[in-house]
């Protein structure tokens, strides 16, 4: 009966070889009653950064609007695209501003940045609902199926996966985890961010 479980939903992000993937389910419900099987929880931030927001659905929309505003202000002032690391801190400080009346969201970010030597560095991060950052080297999970996601991801993930293998790994991890969670599921969406393109695919899932 936690407010974090009101609407359900889960997000996962994984690191690969010069690529990252972020995926979420598509369910939005009211407690156990499913309302929508097409709820957008992952948003593009720049060409190479995506943000996933599991948690209370009203705050998903509110926080998305708020971050879009702050990001636009950053882009205009700096006259350049934001770096993934900087964006993570922007999300973190936006959440911590509401330390004693938080947005009930646990954001997950995924992106790649170009290093001065011309290489591509994958980046993933997650925060809790008050903005405590967690920079992981392998994968991050959040949402109502997070406990299951940890288990499956721990078993399936390996270092330096190519984009297509990473897609398979993150898809299998997410699908098998959300099928064990009553509040997540109803289909999934997966984004694989590579150095020259973003591959977006939707997955059909169990509808029970």
């Amino acid at each position, binding site marked *: 009966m936690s407010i974090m479980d009101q609407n359900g939903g889960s997000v996962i992000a994984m690191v690969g070889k010069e690529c990252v993937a972020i995926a979420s389910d598509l369910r*939005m419900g009211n407690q156990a*009653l499913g309302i*929508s099987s*097409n709820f957008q929880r992952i948003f593009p931030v720049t060409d190479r950064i995506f943000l996933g927001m599991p948690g209370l659905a*009203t705050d998903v*929309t*509110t926080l998305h609007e708020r971050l879009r505003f702050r990001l636009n202000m950053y882009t205009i002032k700096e006259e350049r695209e934001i770096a993934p690391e900087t964006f993570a801190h922007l999300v973190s400080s936006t959440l911590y501003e509401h330390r004693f*009346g938080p947005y009930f969201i646990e954001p997950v970010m995924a992106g790649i940045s170009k290093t001065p030597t011309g290489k591509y560095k994958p980046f993933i991060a997650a925060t809790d609902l008050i903005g405590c950052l967690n920079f992981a080297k392998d994968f991050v999970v959040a949402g109502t199926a997070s406990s299951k996601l940890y288990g499956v991801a721990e078993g399936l993930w390996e270092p330096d996966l190519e984009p297509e293998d990473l897609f398979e790994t993150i898809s299998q991890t997410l699908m098998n985890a959300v099928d064990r969670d009553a509040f997540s599921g109803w289909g999934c*969406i997966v984004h694989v961010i590579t150095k020259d393109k973003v591959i977006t695919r939707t997955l059909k899932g169990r509808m029970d």
Partner: protein
Amino acid sequence: MQYSFIEPPWRPRKGYLIMAADTTAARSIVKMKVDEDKIKTLSPHLLMAYSGEPGKSLSLKDPRDTVQFAEYVERNIRLYQIRNLYPLRPAAAASWIRRALADSIRSRKPYVVNLLLGGYDTATHEPHLYWVDYLGTMTEVPFAAHGYGAYFALSLLDRYHNPEATLEEGLETLKRCLDEVSKRLVVSPSKYKVKIVDKDGVREIEL
């Protein structure tokens, strides 16, 4: 960047939207009124059905609350139309109303109002339906319901909703839902108002 979220799988649809609401105004266990219209016409092509949150305590669910909020929305949508000489499109109206509820939920005395917002977009010639609750949760859906009847209506609509159905077939599906609610719900409403919005605007019909 070129990016759009996946197209909702239920498109394309026939160009209409049906909305129905019962006409009883109740206070606790007492029926106060049996001819209340709970579907407001916000603009020539926009409908809003509103109700309180079922199961919430009476102090939180003042019937004036729902009506007050509906009138507040109605007048603001009208003001926009007067100022700009064109009405808000369904998606924009839904966003504005959602924001009003999202701000309200973190205020001293939140409105406890659940909404269904349905409109016909005269620019793209497509109907849109939004499910909005008192927390400010909003999602676009092919069909939706609020209240205790929702448990029955949604199950039936999962089975019988057809995006290609004609208006007559759509109304038949609506009747099945209302009949099921009458059959299974302990305290079922006796009368419904049914409104349709399509390219010609809003009209009320008798089932």
